[in-house]
């Protein structure tokens, strides 16, 4: 084709304009995406509820359980008071401990988070049932909801990951910030508490808004699809927050946290066929949609049948059993973990650090978990750690964690 130089020039200019326009568009889009991707970088520690429950899950977590090494209510109270002060500082990105110390003593803050953003740090504290034995004079205050979890058929609990007097879930988008916080709590508590266990996790992840896509766990499936909508106050009051009439007034506005370390047999899962993997879960691996549905969030229909009269979602699949009649709801906050190798087999020690918040563990978590004894997924997983904590209500400025318990 013959093109005159003028026309060529014009076309050239058009191309330049077009590319300028496109570049601008790309820049704007990148800026927008950048803005969106930076999540809240600070969550105030003080407030109506503890953070790290309804707030969106950050990328990293460390869950720690502590045991008290002394007896008597004052020691528990002092730990909670000191941790309150520290948690407020940490969430604001401030150093903990005494400042301006002479160089002849160790620094108050360990320093590895200096200059880092708080990265959306949240700390969520709770008490284990063992705190309500005779040691602290609190036996009468044990909430009925803080049950001893029953043993489930697929449990192979390892005492290294079970129980604890105190529990804290620390989450942030930066694992160094997370570690700094847990390290600070342990250091502050020296002589009064010892770490019982620590478990690290990275985002799996269960979103806490209903319009986001759910993260994938290490089996490659979306995990936590049916999480309730955290923006719905009524639902949260029903599902998550302990209410005035629930029998433990000091827990009003608090919640109960179940932590389960679910080991996945990664090598075995990886050699099970694509078809078996999907049949095990009851959802399409790619889209996350339940069989017979198109999208992840489409309603699950356990009654839908194929031409042969077999239910599309197998009755022993994880979805079918976990869902049951769909009555019980829990708020999931799932993270994946990889903890090196199982020294006995040389296989991955990896899986899901399952966490769920609920108002009443017995009628919510236990009801769901009890249905899973014949879950097809049990061939590929086993629960090796378990703990339940009563997470305090939020702390008002000037107050401290669990203050209501000591009144």
């Amino acid at each position, binding site marked *: 084709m013959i093109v005159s130089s003028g026309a060529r020039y014009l076309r050239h200019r058009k191309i330049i304009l077009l590319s300028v326009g496109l570049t601008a568009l790309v820049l704007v889009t*990148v800026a927008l*995406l*950048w803005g*969106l*991707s930076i999540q809240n970088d600070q969550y105030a520690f003080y407030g109506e509820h503890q953070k790290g429950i309804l707030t969106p899950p950050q990328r990293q977590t460390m869950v720690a359980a502590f045991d008290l090494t002394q007896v008597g209510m004052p020691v528990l109270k002092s730990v909670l008071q000191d941790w309150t002060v520290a948690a407020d500082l940490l969430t604001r990105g401030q150093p903990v401990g005494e400042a301006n110390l002479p160089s002849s003593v160790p620094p108050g803050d360990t320093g590895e988070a200096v200059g880092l953003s708080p990265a959306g740090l949240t700390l969520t504290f709770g008490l284990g049932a063992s705190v309500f034995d005779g040691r602290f004079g609190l036996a009468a205050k044990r909430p009925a909801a803080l049950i001893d979890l029953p*043993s489930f*058929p697929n449990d*192979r609990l390892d005492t290294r990951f079970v129980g604890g007097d105190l529990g804290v879930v620390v989450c942030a988008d930066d694992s160094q910030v997370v570690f700094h916080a847990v390290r600070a709590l342990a250091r502050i508590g020296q002589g009064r508490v010892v770490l019982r266990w620590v478990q690290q996790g990275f985002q799996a992840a269960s979103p806490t808004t209903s319009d986001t896509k759910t993260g994938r766990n290490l089996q490659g499936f979306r995990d936590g699809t049916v999480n309730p909508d955290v923006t719905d106050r009524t639902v949260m009051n029903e599902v998550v927050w302990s209410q005035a009439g629930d029998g433990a007034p000091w827990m009003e506005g608090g919640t109960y946290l179940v932590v389960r370390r679910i080991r996945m*047999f990664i*090598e*075995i899962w*990886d*050699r*099970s*066929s*694509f*078809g*078996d993997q999907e049949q095990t879960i009851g959802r399409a*691996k*790619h889209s996350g949609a339940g069989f017979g549905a198109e999208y992840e969030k489409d309603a699950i229909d356990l009654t839908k049948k194929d031409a042969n009269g077999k239910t599309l979602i197998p009755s022993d699949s994880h979805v079918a059993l976990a869902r049951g009649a769909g009555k019980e709801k829990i708020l999931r906050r799932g993270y994946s973990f990889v903890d090196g190798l199982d*020294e*006995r*087999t*040389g*296989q991955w020690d990896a899986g899901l650090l399952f966490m769920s918040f609920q108002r009443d563990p017995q009628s919510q978590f236990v009801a769901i978990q009890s249905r899973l004894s014949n879950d097809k997924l049990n*061939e590929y997983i086993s629960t090796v750690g378990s703990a339940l904590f009563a997470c305090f209500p939020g702390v008002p400025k000037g107050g401290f964690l669990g203050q209501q318990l000591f009144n």
Partner: protein
Amino acid sequence: MGLIRGAVGGLALAALFVVMSCQKETAVPQATPANDLTVAISAYRAYAADQIDSLVAATTDFARSVTEGQYSKARAQYAPARMYYERIEPIAEAIGVLDARIDARESTDPEWTGFHRIEKFLWSGVADGSPLPTIIKSAATNLVQDTKLLRAKVESIELETADLITHAVELLNEVSATKIVGEEERYSRTDLYDVVANVEGSKKIFDLVSPALQSRDAALHAKVAAAFQALETRLAAFRTAEGYLSFDKVSKDTLKEVSRAVDALAEPLSLLPKALVPGNK
């Protein structure tokens, strides 16, 4: 940026799924009379029936020793009887409730019955002729009944080529996740009998499909055959005059090596349907 990375990751994942679904479409040569897998399936059904016949006989003898108070004899009969079961365990699992009745691990369930219920009693230090608790007596009676029921039901079990391979892989999964860490025979410590039987059952399936596999994917066949051999060599070291070493006589390192040899075998074994199953469902 996170979102962009996410989008790229999503695309990559989508591409992966496309690749995975394409793999599923790969055409497979039509079966010829020489490598017809229906022969392998019926041969496997016969093998399973044969194993369960032996299981019924061995379990009947074992149960008799238990009920007669001949506990030393029962202890010697226990592991060899179980091997018949361990060779075809996925068949029992496919049938459903029977596996839980025959082979359930220790539990607080008052209904707990089967081999391991009796195992716990036999290895609790009981002397020959000491009284037999009612619960163990009924566990022994149930066990014989349940193995007979298994024998009756095996005739009607539906089996397809893909199931066969799944069973072969599942038998190895049994080894690599739980048996190799000593979870199965926590009182008798006869875990290695189970390990050997699981591998033998898996190998049987491989042998049955071998001619077909050899003609359709000789490279995969060679790979799996070599991995079986490597594992069998390791297991042969556990052989003793009476049977197999006690679990607690084997070093941790050796057990780990076995687990890894199982993983190295099971991974290629799981690919067999690619070559053997026409038009993959």
